[in-house]
């Protein structure tokens, strides 16, 4: 199986879906001539031409809203946000229009749009460019939210997202773009809403997603080597729909839960998970649910300190040991 980067995996998904469906069009800032701010769309303009790969002005409310309108007439726009942090200037289009139009029309109108781009901290760009809005997005019924952690997942989930008839918000990670992994060629589809056990274990369950999966896997290795503790790592992959069954199955095995997320703690994805786990798996728990999040402040610029603000293997390890104490 070819080993390619997360970036290339997303590009392959885009190219294959552009090839498959003439109604798929990629729009965003710098996606065409510039080959993508993060080079995700590199080469697509040359291959598919300017009708299918479209540079937009810096105008998120305008072009995202335009994509929503076009999707109502059957176009399948895949819109790139250079950073998901810029969702705030298009909030009305994303969360009033895309999320609500099907409901408010009594089911008469669909909005098969994908909005994708990176959503992460850790690149020393300060608070305005480091938002992780998956909790905010997933709070809106009508939308789907995907946060892939590996190249193979990124490809399989994006292809499913583009074929989905509901609006899908796809949150990538600039730090992962260069990560390599085995990715199946051609038709590789992963259904949205299916979690993946990235590491099997018996003593505690780490529920996580996105880049935090990698930190959790690194911490799980340390737990095994240094403390003889066996951690199971469950990668949600999709936030909404949510595969809570896989989480509960793991909890029934390990009886201890640590949630790891690159989220501010207040009303985070983990808050929802913790509620559901205690509600539906209370009898399986041998300890209170524990959670590791971003340290609760706007994203700090200072490079070495930002590492400590975000989840990292050492912080995950410490939290896991607290849970096991």
């Amino acid at each position, binding site marked *: 199986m070819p080993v390619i980067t997360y970036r290339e995996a997303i590009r392959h998904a885009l190219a294959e879906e552009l090839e498959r469906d003439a109604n798929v069009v990629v729009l965003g800032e710098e996606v065409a001539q510039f080959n993508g701010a993060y080079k995700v769309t590199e080469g697509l303009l040359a291959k598919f031409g300017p009708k299918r790969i479209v540079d937009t002005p810096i105008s998120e*409310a*305008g072009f995202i*809203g*335009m994509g929503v309108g076009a999707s109502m007439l059957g176009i399948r726009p895949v819109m790139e946000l250079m950073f998901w942090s810029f969702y705030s200037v298009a909030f009305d289009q994303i969360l*009033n229009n895309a999320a609500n139009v099907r409901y*408010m029309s009594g089911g*008469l109108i669909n909005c098969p749009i994908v909005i994708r781009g990176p959503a992460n901290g850790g690149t020393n760009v300060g608070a305005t460019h480091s938002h992780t809005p998956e909790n905010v997005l997933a709070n809106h019924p009508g939308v789907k939210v995907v946060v892939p952690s590996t190249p193979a997942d990124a490809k399989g989930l994006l292809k*499913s997202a583009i074929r989905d008839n*509901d609006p899908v918000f796809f949150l990538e990670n600039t730090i992962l773009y260069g990560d390599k992994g085995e990715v199946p060629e051609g038709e590789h589809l992963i259904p949205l809403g*299916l979690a993946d056990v990235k590491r099997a274990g018996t003593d505690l369950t780490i529920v996580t997603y996105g880049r935090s999966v990698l930190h959790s896997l690194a911490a799980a290795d340390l737990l095994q080597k240094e403390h003889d503790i066996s951690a199971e790592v469950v990668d949600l992959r999709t936030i909404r729909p949510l595969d809570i069954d896989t989480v509960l199955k793991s909890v029934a095995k390990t009886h201890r839960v640590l949630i790891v997320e690159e989220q501010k703690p207040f009303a985070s994805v983990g808050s929802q998970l913790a509620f559901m786990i205690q509600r539906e798996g209370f009898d399986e728990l041998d300890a209170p649910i524990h959670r590791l999040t971003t340290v609760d402040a706007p994203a700090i610029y200072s490079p070495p300190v930002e590492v400590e603000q975000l989840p990292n293997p050492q912080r995950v390890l410490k939290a896991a040991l607290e849970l096991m104490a």
Partner: protein
Amino acid sequence: MTKKPSATADKKADDSVSSASPSSRAAINQQLGKETRIDLFRTMMRIRRFEERSLRAYQAKKIGGFLHLYIGQEAVAVGCCSLMGKNDHVITAYRDHGHAIAVGMGVNELMAELYGKATGCSKGKGGSMHYFAPDRNFWGGHGIVGGQIPLGTGLAYALKYKGLKGAAMAFMGDGAVNQGAVHEAYNLAALWQLPVVFVIENNGYSMGTSQERSSAGDLAKRAEGYNMAWGTCDGHDIYDVRAVMDKFLRLAREESKPAVVEIRTYRYRGHSVADPDNTYRAKSEIEEYRRTKDPIQVFQNTLVAEGVLDDALIAQIDQAARAEADAAADFAEASPFPTPDDIQKDVYWEADHPAERKSQGRLFFD
């Protein structure tokens, strides 16, 4: 005793209302047959009577939330929508009842939507501000000022992408022109030469703030900053609306060029029914518009002068419109409410098509 028929119900018809319209000589109006002219008049009358009936229902507490009435602006929606071809599309803001009737939606489903009934056009899920009829190329019905304008631009984008010769009409009020999303949409439309006509229905007030207190400069002229064509017309004169809009719709359909058209109109009622309407304009101003510029009265006089309408036919059209509105209210009243089980339907396409669902996991969190 029979009252002299008048659109401004219970007000005396005034002979000073103008009826001559230079736009009546425009080809798009010249070609109208007698029956089509009567139909235009009838549709305007049906909107007015629908709105009056819905106001009474609101006052009787049959309708929740807001009710933004279109009374006074009827010539705008009817004039514009009467120009629609197969590939022309419409989107508007929350004062959307007139457009809905003008594109041909049935008043029963519209009234039932106001009543929050399952038989409503959105099954009671959208309400007054959120009417939709994609089968009639009507894409809402949107609640946030200016938020629908990028969507309308997207309709035009889709037309161009698919190679269809059509135009999108994206309606907004004069209060929307200062929203950032509107300007972003203008730029995109002009940059990519999208077939969209941005229609500003200028009724003079953005809620309770007059145009002079909210907007710098001429509203439509802002199009010049984007190298877009623009025009204005008299929204009290349906012939003028049709003549001017026809020109810009052709530009969009045939040359794929966007434009901004400002249609000067007036609303007789408050911003919504909840607006006491006594702080920002004088009653005499409203009376003056009703007396001299009422769009239905203007068109009625025009058609009488053309020999198309007479008193008997006017009375018949008026009576039918009142009866239709009353019947719609009866229909709405008799219809069932949606049930709590309906709350989570129409949220996700996938949830409503379980046999075709590809995703897994929970979509809802209760």
